[in-house]
Structure formats: C-alpha cells, structure tokens
C-alpha cells in the first residue's frame, strides 16, 4: 500500500508537467548543451523548427516540424475542400517541383499543411496526395490540431479565418525554408509564376 502511495505521489508530481508539455509554448533550443558530437548544430533563432508542436503526416506518423530539417522546403498552408485558390497554390508548388533539376528534386521537401483540423485527417490527406500524383518521396502533407495550425500560421505570417460551415478564408503564401527551417523567401498572391522561389530552392538544394 505504501509503495502504491509513493508511486501515486510521484505520479502526481510528474503528471502536471507531462500534461503541460502538450501545450508547452515553443521556446529556444539554441542554448541546449550538445552532449553528442554527432548531434546537429543548434537551431538558428530564426528557424521555425523551434516549434515543439506535433503534427501527423499522411502516413499517420507523429512528427514535429523539425523532422523536415536537412532539406530545403517549399511550404504552403491549404485545405483539401478549398476549390478556389488552393488548387492554384498546389499547381504553383508543382511548377516549382518541375522547374528543379532532377538532382535538386531529390533533395527537397514540398509540404502542405492543412488549416482544416476537423476534415483533413491523415487518411484524407493521403487520398488527396494520391489523387494529385504527389510523389511521397518528397511531398509531405501534415494534419495538425488547432494550436499547431495557429502557431505555424503565426510563424509564417499567414492569415486565416474559419467561417461558419467549416471553410476557411486565408492568404495565399508559398514559403521557402532553408535546410534549418529559416524562412528565406515568401511569395504572396497567386499572380506571378514562381520562378524566383524555384531558383532559390534550387540554390538551397546544392
């Protein structure tokens, strides 16, 4: 009995901390001591991979944004039920993809993160990717909770608002991140053909 109480007490002491971890606001990892020489260098203070939020990819795997670290990224926030601009955003990302040299293409991530927590569950995202022939070796589609979506939009400067009925109004932005998650370029709007982001991504992939 005593042992159980001890365990319970210890659990009680630990639980609040554990419960908080989910809502833990992002903080700097920049000054974490690296004990292992093979660990990568600390993240830049400008990197969006500072975020600890969890997402789920289209395979159902739990990931953090920093799992993208190591390859430059072309990223946009969309949702699958969107019939107006999001198809164009996707088309722009596909244009970027085809503008890359074959070598560079192997060394980038093309990422779609969905606004739509309710409907764009991983299975839906997987079907969407298949329907659009998105090569899984380089296309990552992410589903996140409301807090994760909000945090990513805040970091990228993306504006959005959920309407009654579940659809979203949102700004149209394509973001290029370097290998360490620092924003290097953003293209707002759908007008211009994405030659500049493509060229940048190519350079970053070398």
């Amino acid at each position, binding site marked *: 009995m005593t042992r159980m109480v001890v365990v319970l007490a210890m659990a009680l002491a630990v639980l609040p901390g554990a419960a908080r971890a989910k809502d833990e606001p992002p903080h700097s990892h920049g000054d974490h001591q690296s004990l292992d020489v093979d660990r990568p260098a600390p993240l830049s203070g*400008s990197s969006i991979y500072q975020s600890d939020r969890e997402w789920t990819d289209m395979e159902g795997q739990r990931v953090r944004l920093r799992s993208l670290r190591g390859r430059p990224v072309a990223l946009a926030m969309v949702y699958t039920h969107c019939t107006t601009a999001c198809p164009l955003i996707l088309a722009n990302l596909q244009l970027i993809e085809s503008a890359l040299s074959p070598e560079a293409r192997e060394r980038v991530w093309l990422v779609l993160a969905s606004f739509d927590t309710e409907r764009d569950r991983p299975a839906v995202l997987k079907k969407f990717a298949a329907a659009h022939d998105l090569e899984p070796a380089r296309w990552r589609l992410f589903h996140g909770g409301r807090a994760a979506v909000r945090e990513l939009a805040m970091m990228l*400067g993306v504006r959005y608002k959920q309407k009654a009925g579940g659809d979203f109004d949102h700004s149209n932005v394509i973001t*290029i991140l370097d290998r360490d998650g620092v*924003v*290097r*370029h*953003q*293209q*707002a709007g759908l007008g211009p053909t994405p030659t*500049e982001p493509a060229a940048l991504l190519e350079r970053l992939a070398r």
Partner: protein
Amino acid sequence: MGGFWDPRAGYDGGHNRPAGEPAKVGQSSHVFNEEDGAAMPGHRRDLPMWIAALMLSFAAVATAAPDQNAVEPTEGEERAVLTDAPMVPPPITRTHATKVVVRLEVVETEMTIAEGVRYTFWTFGGKVPGKFIRIREGDLVEFHLDNHPNNKMPHNIDLHAVTGPGGGAASSLSAPGHSSVFSFKALNPGLYVYHCATAPVAMHVANGMYGLILVEPKDGLPKVDREYYVMQGDLYTKGPNGQPGLQPFSMVKAIDERPEYVVFNGAVGAVAGDKALQARIGETVRLYFGVGGPNLTSSFHVIGEIFDRVWPEGNTSVVSQNVQTTMVPAGGAAIIDFKVEVPGTYILVDHSLTRAFNKGALGMLKVEGGDNKIVYSGKITDEVYQPEGSRIRVTDLPPQAARPALTKKQLLDRGRSVYTTNCAACHQATGHGIPKAFPPLARSDYLNADKVRAIRTVTGGLQGSVTVNGEKYNGVMPAWTLSDEDVAAVLTYVYGSWGNSAKEVSAQEVKTHRAKSSAKASE
C-alpha cells in the same frame, strides 16, 4: 536575406545576411532601429534586378515611353537626396536611369499649427509636407519606409508615381518599430503626390502625411533660377480656428469637409515673414505646388504675379501660358514658373478667399531689387501676425503719376480690393471683426462718429482701449503705408458698406489729416 523574415536584420546592420543575398522585389520587413537610418547596408547587391532587367530588355517593346521605361536597364546606384519644404533637391544631371534608394522615416510629433495652437502631426521625415523626392524617368526606386519605434500608429505609403497595386501601399504597411521595403520603376515623368494610405486614409492625410515626388522627364525641365516646394493641406481640429492648446483631430469636421485651418507647408505662416520664399528681380522662380488635402481643391494664385508657364496637374509635356490662377485638385500638383520683375512681397493664396484670410492659406515670396537691399520697416512684427491672414506691407510703391479723379464706383471697387487685401484679415470680409479681438466696422459707432479720426487711425495706427458698440477692445492696429487714394478708397468703401453712414472720403482729406505719429486711443 529577402522575403518577410530575418527579424534581426536591421538590428545588427544586416551582417547575418548571407553574402550575396540580394534585396528582393516585393515586401520585406525587419526591425527598425534608430541606427538604421544612418547605416546603409552598402553590400546589398541587386543581382536579381540585373537579371530581371536583362531578361526584360530582350522583350519586344512598344514605342510608348512608359513601356520603354519599364525595360530600360539601370546603371549604378545612388541614395536619394531628400529635402524639407520649401527647399528642393538639385536638378538631376545624369543622362541615364539608375537605382535610387529612398529612405523615408515616419515620425509622429507635436508641432505648432498657429500661434498657441498645437497638433500631433504624423509626418514623413519629421515635417509637413514630407520630404521632397527627386528622381528621373526610368529610375528604379528601392523604397524603405521606416515607422519609428516611438510612434503609436501603423503607416504605409502610396506614391502616385508608382504603377502597381496601391501605389506601394499594398507592400509598405509597417507597425511601429518596423520597416518595409519595396521597389518600383518610375515609368512616367511628372510631379506626383505621395501620402499615407492606411485606413482611415483621410485622418492620416489630415494629420500631415503627404509630400511630393518629382519624376523628371529624360531631358529635364527648363532651367530656372529658384525652385521652391509648397504644399497645401486642410486641418480639422476639435477646437475652432485659433483656440489654443493641443488640439485633437475632429472626425466629424473632416467628414463634413469643414476645416478649421487651410495652410501651406503645415502651419499658418510657414511660408511667411522670416520664412518667406526669396528671390531677386529678374530671376525665374519655379514653384512645385501640390495639394495634400485631404479634401479641398486649391485655386492657387500669387497676388501681383502672372504665371508665365504652368504645367497643369503635374504633367511635364503640355504647358499653359499666362495663367492667373491654376486649379490644383486634392492629391494633385502643378509646376509653375514665373519671372519676377518688380521688387516687393508677393502673396501666395488659395483664391477661395476665406481660406486665405481666415484659415491661413497664405504665403509670401519676397523679391529684392538689384543691389538695394529693401529695408522693411520694423512694424512688420510676427507677434502681431494673425492666423487668419496677413497685412500686406508694400514698402516700395511705384511712383504715383497724377491721375484724373476716380468715379464713385471705381473708388468703391478699389476700396473693396484694398479692404480685402489689408483689412479683412482682422476686421473680416463682413466687417464684423472678431469678438474681443478686432472691433467691428459694420454699424460701428466709433467709426461713424468721426471721419477724421478714422483717417488718422488708418494712416497712423491705434493702441490702447477703445469701446465700440458697447464692447471694449484693447489691441494694436498697425499704421498702414497706403497712398492717399487707397486710404480714401478703403474708407469710402467701409463707410458705404454694412449699414454705415455712407460718408465719402477724398484723397485730399486724407492728405490733410494723415497722422504724423501713431494715434493714441484717447484722441
């Protein structure tokens, strides 16, 4: 580093920027420190601009000038020289298009509108109007808008010279302590207004956020001796015209288009007295005149001058000649040239006259003659200068040839003109004066009782306490240097107006009774 990010870019002078990373077209923003204004990231190379320009230059081009300007490649880079009104940067001498870096800092600051009246202005560069920007057709401008950290409000800029969404407004909204950068090519020559376009736009403009940008045509403008920058604006204060203290903005008056002040260069008297524009006889003077608004159109006129050339609406190809009054719309401009032949003080006005004489739309150009320095009598003192307008002191009168006596009608017309120019500022066009400040002339017992005293008052001035129609007034009326005919005309006019006794005053009477020294109220 380009794009939206790099929050620390301005903070450490951009040293964490990867080498060779070019500045981007489109919006980028970073933290703005006061040090940023001084330090120019000099290593910024516009690589993609070159690439873009080269690519574009291979495109088929139409012959229209703006289309040519769009593709003309630029050589080199320079930092724009910016000036405060009424000064203008020097004319452009280079013969090719270049990249010009313009840095405008928004500063919210309290300044004076008129004697005792203060207002919190929002400014481009610390003054109203904002800095004058001078570039050449075809130039590529890299525009930095810095919102000082001490400011409270967000701001952006719309330059009428820009061809692009919002004139730059879409790419330049900056929160306090932050900056925005965008680029544009000057496709069309002309004199253009720029202003803040953050909602509510009328409030930002009413608070002083406007200025002029001159895009010189390729061959430049005809050379002149003097160039000046004057801009008109309407101000909407909560308190009525003249009420002292820090005045807040009145939204109601702005929407109703009922300004309390209409001024040149941001304040009553900003272009007058010791701040008057200067020229010498025989010189050609050019005014770059704009109207920031937010609401009123100006009927711009210089009393005593005819505009030899006007490029209306800020265009640089079509000229009007011999113009008396040119109409400049809100958000518009005009380039005005004239040669000054006669020394004296020329009054710049909005010829919607109550704006000039009651609200402050009045400025001065002082023209000096030859080698003789004109000495102004000490009676032109700024402390007597009134918000509603100014007394015009013509100290050098042309010699009066003997003339046939004027008919009554001519006398009255002349009198009205003299009255409007000299007296209306204080006694008002209606003759009602200003309660507690300037006595009425309409049905004035003081005036109607004694004609000789009236002559003495106009020619000699008056100090001390007077009682007019039962009210006490204790002000200073200066002596007027007017010819006998003018005094006679104005007094006849006054006596013939507003229910007064219709006395007539002749030049001979004026000559006889002209005051030798300043009259005292007791006389």
